[in-house]
């Protein structure tokens, strides 16, 4: 099997990985880096559990060839919190709003909300639903997820930091 060595930036650190041509980003993050926050669930880009950011844009990691990560900047849920264990305001808002039950989909939702708030710091309900329409929560915590998104937006605006 053809193995290629690629270099990219993962959660702010320069890294290299050996990838096989058929592997997707989730395969690589799991096997080469032990990162399990982004999960392949539907495998079709529909459920959002595999959401990661490539060059600042949210993508479905399950539909993205790992090989194409060469030279990019990849950010995952594991890179959101501070080194001292403090959570990102979006993560904290999900906890405070009770925006999950089993938590399987939560990393994907949090990464989508990060994208949403970067694009629109004060999103309407419609905009929130539009951005999150490609994320499925089978515990159906949707009302709380919308509330968490608004809570995060308010806190970030109050703190004046992204």
């Amino acid at each position, binding site marked *: 099997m053809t193995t*290629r060595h690629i270099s990219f930036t993962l959660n702010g650190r320069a890294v290299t990985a050996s990838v096989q*041509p058929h592997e997707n980003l989730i395969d690589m993050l799991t096997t080469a880096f032990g990162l399990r926050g982004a999960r392949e669930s539907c495998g079709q*880009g529909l459920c959002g559990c595999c959401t990661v950011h490539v060059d600042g844009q949210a993508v479905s990691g399950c539909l*993205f*060839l790992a090989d194409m990560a060469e030279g990019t900047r990849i950010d995952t849920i594991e890179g959101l919190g501070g080194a001292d264990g403090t959570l990102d305001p979006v993560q904290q808002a999900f906890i405070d709003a009770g925006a999950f039950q089993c938590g399987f989909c939560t990393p994907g939702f949090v990464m989508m909300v990060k*994208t949403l708030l970067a694009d629109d710091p004060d999103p309407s309900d419609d905009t929130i639903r539009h951005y999150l*329409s*490609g994320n499925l929560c089978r515990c159906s915590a949707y009302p709380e997820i919308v509330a968490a998104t608004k809570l995060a937006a308010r806190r970030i605006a109050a703190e004046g930091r992204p």
Partner: protein
Amino acid sequence: MADFTIEYPGTLAEALSFLDPDDPSVRPVGGGTALMLMMKSQMFHPTRLVCLSRLSEPMTGCREDGDHIRIGAMTTLSQVEHSALIAAEFPVIHNAMKNLANVRVRNVATIGGNLAHGDPHLDLPPIWAALGAEAIIHGPSGQRSVKVEDLFQGYYETDVADGELITEIRVPRLPGWRATYRKVTTRALHDWPAIGLTLAARFDGDRIADIRLVLSAAVDIPQRLRGAEEVLRGHRPDAMLLARAGDSAAAEAPMEHDSRGSVDYKVHLLKVHILRGMNEIGKG
């Protein structure tokens, strides 16, 4: 999965040199979202993928070119969605984006890949067809262009040969035309549509001066409904006329039944949405 290689050409000439006119297992890749699904489902076993992500203009971006707009094949759906030029020239494309897949897929999927995929359920190809757009295709023997309307030859089959790739879409500006795309899903919004119907028309007062209707999803390839267009062209779109156009459309469209509905059901949807679509664009 069998082994394959991935190439990243830096120029169009290099990209063409990696393709193979005699080998369908060598494919160009835009964002790869659709191709990944075909590989995962074992529908497609590549021996070589030619990733076009390092190619630049004219393969990327939206620009004005006289009475046309040109969109590079590697422009992502998100870039088209957020292009002020596209929103001003073709609001029907801008509006369709919001209900097309989701933000993540639009961030990666490309305009050219979306066309080359040849899936009749997709939202953009029938709209490009109704707008009179053409695909610019490069291959070993140079450049040619094919109207999007004529690009599709069967279910997942296009006029783009092995060894060729789509480089741009060229869309005529259509002053005075109004268009809408009606994506009719029967379950969730993000389901495949039972039918897709694009209506594009130019009005002269309250008469339809010219019109193009394109049906998608329920048929093997996006299809012009020329009989229904003929019924409508030159007339005021009153309820009687729209009913006749609906009958004509139903008679000429070889629709298929599937999990999204029976043929009878889709015929009903088609008639209803010809009426609603004309009401929508007729109001201006």
